[in-house]
């Protein structure tokens, strides 16, 4: 027997539980590490996680665990699906046991509040692992649990991560595409959350699909501007982790960020909306961090700026919509993007 006999998912939220389900279904010996003892017992006894994956039956081979040491020490591939707010703390904890031959994959579409860095960067800082990857794409948990066909991108600078990850995760229902553009894949997942809030607001206001198409296409443009400064390849944003994810999150009530925008457009405050949702909307923190970043780098990101003003400066959605529409007419693909690409 090799050194490792399992794979692991860190985080028992909806996405973590869904990935564990996929891995177990594929026949991997799968650990699911979580902190919540009630959910631990629930998965162990009834193979369900009602809080996050509702009535879906989870694969019975999932091994829920509260023991980080055991989970990490027995798993060659560890997928981390923890919200960005506690990602660093959990990564540090993992770092006590991680060794250099292990593969860590972030499945979190957030950005680190403390250092304005991506989750893969956090894994680098908090553990000794070098073989790090990112899993992202248009993946609504509920659909994946139902076995609907779906796909994601697994990005890493290390081909070993991509190949082993593909072998471990992909299944007849779930395709994995590889990419070397870890920055692009990660940034796509982060920025789309902000655009999803805007799309929710648009639907909440009763605007039609024209408005949404406008938001999505201009959102991709902003994604490109931000992504390039992180070293991303702009083409990545036209793929699953960019456009693909944006299409899903901008049109489904299953998306937490979309729901947040929708509720706010109906007159609820951000605080109330988040309380009612009872789960984390990564776009909230991402907006704050990327707004600051964009200001610092003098990037043109009007949608993100508008969402920031609505979330944090109490501007009204109508005012922001009006100001966005009142912007000077310009070319669709302007020189700034070309210049950023050239740099």
């Amino acid at each position, binding site marked *: 027997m*090799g*050194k*490792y006999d399992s794979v692991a998912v860190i985080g028992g939220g909806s996405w973590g539980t869904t990935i564990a389900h996929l891995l177990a279904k594929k026949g991997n010996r799968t650990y699911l590490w979580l902190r919540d003892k009630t959910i631990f017992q629930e998965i162990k006894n009834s193979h369900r996680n009602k809080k996050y994956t509702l009535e879906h039956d989870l694969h019975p081979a999932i091994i829920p665990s509260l023991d980080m040491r055991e989970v990490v020490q027995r798993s060659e591939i560890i997928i981390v699906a923890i919200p960005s707010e506690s990602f660093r703390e959990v990564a*540090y904890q993992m*770092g*006590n046991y991680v*060794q*250099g*031959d292990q593969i860590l994959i972030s499945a979190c579409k957030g950005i680190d509040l403390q250092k304005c860095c991506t989750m893969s960067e956090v894994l*680098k*800082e*908090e*553990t*000794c692992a*070098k*073989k790090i990857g990112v899993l992202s794409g248009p993946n609504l948990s509920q659909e994946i649990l139902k076995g609907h066909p779906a796909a994601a991108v697994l990005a890493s*600078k*290390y*081909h*070993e991560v991509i190949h082993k990850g593909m072998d471990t995760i992909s299944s007849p229902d779930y395709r994995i595409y590889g990419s070397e553009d870890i920055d692009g894949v990660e940034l796509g997942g982060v920025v789309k959350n902000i655009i999803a809030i805007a799309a929710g607001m648009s639907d909440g206001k009763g605007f039609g699909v024209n408005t949404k198409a406008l938001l999505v296409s201009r959102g991709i443009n902003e994604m490109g501007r931000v992504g390039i400064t992180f070293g991303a390849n702009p083409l990545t944003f036209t793929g699953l982790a960019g456009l693909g994810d944006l299409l899903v999150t901008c049109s489904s009530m299953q998306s937490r960020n979309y729901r947040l925008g929708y509720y706010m457009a109906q007159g609820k405050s951000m605080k109330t909306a988040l309380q009612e949702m009872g789960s984390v909307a990564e776009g909230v923190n991402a907006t704050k961090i990327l707004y600051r970043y964009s200001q610092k780098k003098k990037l043109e990101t009007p949608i993100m700026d508008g969402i920031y003003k609505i979330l944090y400066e109490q501007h009204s959605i109508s005012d922001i919509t009006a100001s966005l529409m009142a912007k000077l007419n310009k070319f669709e693909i302007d020189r700034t993007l070309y210049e950023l690409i050239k740099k």
Partner: protein
Amino acid sequence: MFRHLNKDSLKNNHITYKGHILKQEHKERVVEEVISRVLSNQIANADKVSLETVINDTIYHARKRLEAKKTTRKTKKSILYWKKLKKRLIHSSEEEQKKILRELITHFTSEIVGNFNPKVYKFASNVLPVALSLMLNALSPCNLIKHLPKFPDLSERIIIEGEIELIQSLQKVGTLILVPTHLSNMDSIVIGWSLYKINLPPFIYGAGINLFTNFLLSYYMNNLGAYKVDRTKTAGLYKETLKEYATCTLEFGYHNLFFPGGTRSRSGALEQNLKLGLLGSSMPAYINNLIHQKEKPNFFVVPCTLSYQVVLEAERLIEDELKVSGKSQYIMEDDEFSQFGRIYNFLQNLLKLDSKIYVRICPAMDLFGNRVDKEGKSYDKRGRQVDIRQYVMQNNEIVRDEQRDRQYTKDLGEEIVKSYKKNNVIMSTHIVSFTIFCILKKQNADMDLYHLLRTGGREDNLPLNQVYHALHTVMERLKEKVSQGELAMDHDLQNAPVERILDDAINHFQSYHKIVVIMRRGDRLYPSDPKLLYYYHNRLLGYDLEKEIE
């Protein structure tokens, strides 16, 4: 802990090269090993790239290189050789192709392979600096009489600081790979001398072939353990032979020195994009060491920054940087380094003006970019010990994976760049140039860089008060950054008033550069050479200081 090298620690230093120099018997084994490895690799890959293709590629690159050169009897002869080889190849069997390939690899290896002569090393390290000092001092007979027998000492001018004790310890538990920044051809001399002064054995290093054609240095280069790197040779076979040579010397436990910038920084800025070819040879060497269960398999990468008040070849380097076509002119054989008078002026300046060169030894790291302690143990960013063998293992077995190892080296390169940035020692010429050039940029915001460099801006002078004010702001911010460990600064500047910093920079510029860089007249300052200002200003790029200038 960072340590400043004091004079006591320089006393009683002795050459510890015994067992470290490339011994004759090792040299023969290294050569044999290189030839055998490169040949085996080529034969093993022949199903992907045939031996014929490899030989043809080598011939093509050699002819292209020679045909671009001036026609001399020597080049004609060489071209003829390659033509004949081409004919031989056309009619060759597979066995004959292997023979040709072996000949080519042997030819490249014998060209690359270095030499080491302890006598020359001892002379160069010990006698040469004193002789230079004496010669410079003797310029003035009064000085000669006045100062004799107290000779000016280069150790007062070349400040070696940083993790000296750490690398002294690490050389006992593994093999060192020194990766300095590269500004000037003086770097090799300065580093060689510094290593000697801190009791380290000589390092094997790859020096550009142009240094071997330089009348002043060729003798020493040939005898100080340098091996030849001909950057005009672009054939894959040559590059592979070169890398394999570095790999073999590392495996034999010889400390190596690579300039990962590849060439001198043309812009004066710190290296950002490293050329990792030679550094990449450390990973296969490490894996081979593990496979062969070597007693000391580990390598320790030691970044090192070199900072000069004035740079010997600054004028030519920045010209080259700014010429679009100049960027392809990779090797300059007629720059200031080949002019004895300029070296003489430079050294005179060094001694006369209390000028300093900082050699800052940065914290060492393993091949994966982790920090190491003096016992050679590696630690992650949170201070937890790391077993680095795991990085090259899968299921408890050592596994070779070229893509993985290339990426490890890229990641290591990023850590080296970060280390350079933190250990960049800023001197008066950098601060003053940065401040003035930023003022010029702000005042001429509508001009592009080349326009500004050509014209120097609309105004030909600046009010001195404005410069002092901006210098003060920049200095305050720099001090904060120094205290936060984001960069380092010449010790004399920490508490110096801005007036003195400006004077110091002007004096250094005036005493060395033929062109007036900045000039003061009354209460006005005249930036006379924007290109050199730009060159020295570039050393402070990347610290987000531009916004400090109003």
